[in-house]
């Protein structure tokens, strides 16, 4: 809810009309990707490039779907509706329950809770944001990076991820003066190579690591992440 508030406020103070955060919060229903979209478009990047970056962030929903036991979302139209409310929270809570009825109850309650809170917060935030005109004086431009930073801090506690994130950030900063707006963030993806040689090095990754003059065995163990991809690997 609080994140929704800041999302709505940030979107309108960045120059978007109210319907943009409102529609996105309902139709996309995945916070980080919406922030990324707004951020790239505000910086002057192409909305389509912003959508692709957002999709990359949302690709985690594919393994979420694989991890969910069948029957949690149901069948037919239930499944179509239940699919839309799949998010970090609903999947975590569903996987944490022991039997199917409880999994289903947790999933739907949490999914619908987010479906109400996120757009509700976004619209409220947008209304509040519309009332503010001089965003610089109140430091509101610092809110956007701070929100995203707060969202990724749990992931950054893993050292491998932290290193890759810092490398990506450096690439983006170095690229900013030279390439069109919106592109630096995408170039940062090159840093994913740092993760490719991380745990359980496959033949390909080992080769890549050897080329880079690094030892693949130096990789850290996977973080005990809070994400369901790691904690509830069912299949």
């Amino acid at each position, binding site marked *: 809810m*609080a994140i929704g508030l800041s999302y709505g406020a940030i979107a309108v103070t960045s120059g978007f009309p109210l319907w943009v955060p409102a529609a*996105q919060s309902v139709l*996309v229903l*995945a916070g980080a*990707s919406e*922030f*990324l*979209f707004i951020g*790239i*478009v505000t910086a*002057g990047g*192409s*909305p*389509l490039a*912003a*959508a692709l970056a957002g*999709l*990359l962030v*949302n*690709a*985690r*929903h*594919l393994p979420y*779907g*694989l*991890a969910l036991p069948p029957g949690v979302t149901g069948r037919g139209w239930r*499944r179509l509706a239940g*699919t839309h409310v799949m998010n970090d929270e609903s999947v975590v809570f569903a996987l944490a329950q022991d039997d199917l009825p409880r999994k289903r109850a947790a999933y739907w309650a949490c999914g619908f809770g987010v479906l109400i809170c996120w757009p509700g917060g976004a619209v409220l935030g947008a209304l509040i944001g519309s009332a503010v005109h001089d965003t610089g004086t*109140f*430091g*509101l431009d*610092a*809110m956007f*990076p*701070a929100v*995203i*930073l*707060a*969202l*990724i*801090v749990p992931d*950054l506690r893993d050292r491998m*991820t932290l290193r*890759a*994130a*810092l490398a*990506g*950030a450096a*690439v*983006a*900063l170095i690229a900013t*003066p030279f390439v069109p707006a919106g592109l*630096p*963030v*995408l*170039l*940062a993806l090159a840093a994913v190579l740092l*993760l490719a040689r991380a745990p359980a090095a496959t033949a390909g990754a080992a080769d890549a690591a050897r080329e880079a003059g690094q030892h693949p065995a130096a990789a850290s163990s996977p973080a005990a992440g809070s994400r369901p*991809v790691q904690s509830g690997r069912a*299949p």
Partner: protein
Amino acid sequence: MKDSTLVIAGMATLAAGTYAFRLSGQVLRARVSFPPRAARLLEGAAVILLAALVATTALTQGHGFSGFARPAGVLAGGVLAWRKAPFLVVVITAAAVTAVARLLGVP
């Protein structure tokens, strides 16, 4: 705002693609197993994108430097987030530090 048709197209792409991701995992479940390594890479890629967004929005404006006030606020927020402060505290502190810095004449 920029060209709103393009923005709508971007939003529609993001919404439709996200739904497709949500659905395809469930549909594929019976047929494939997704390697945990790939899941980890995807997650890492998302964090990298967002970290780059933090860096560029905190430190740059257009193609140049944003000034010191904004990154100072973001840094303050980041330290609080690392220390597990509540989300609202993080965000309000970031804005407040930046606002006070500007009040004191920091660019």
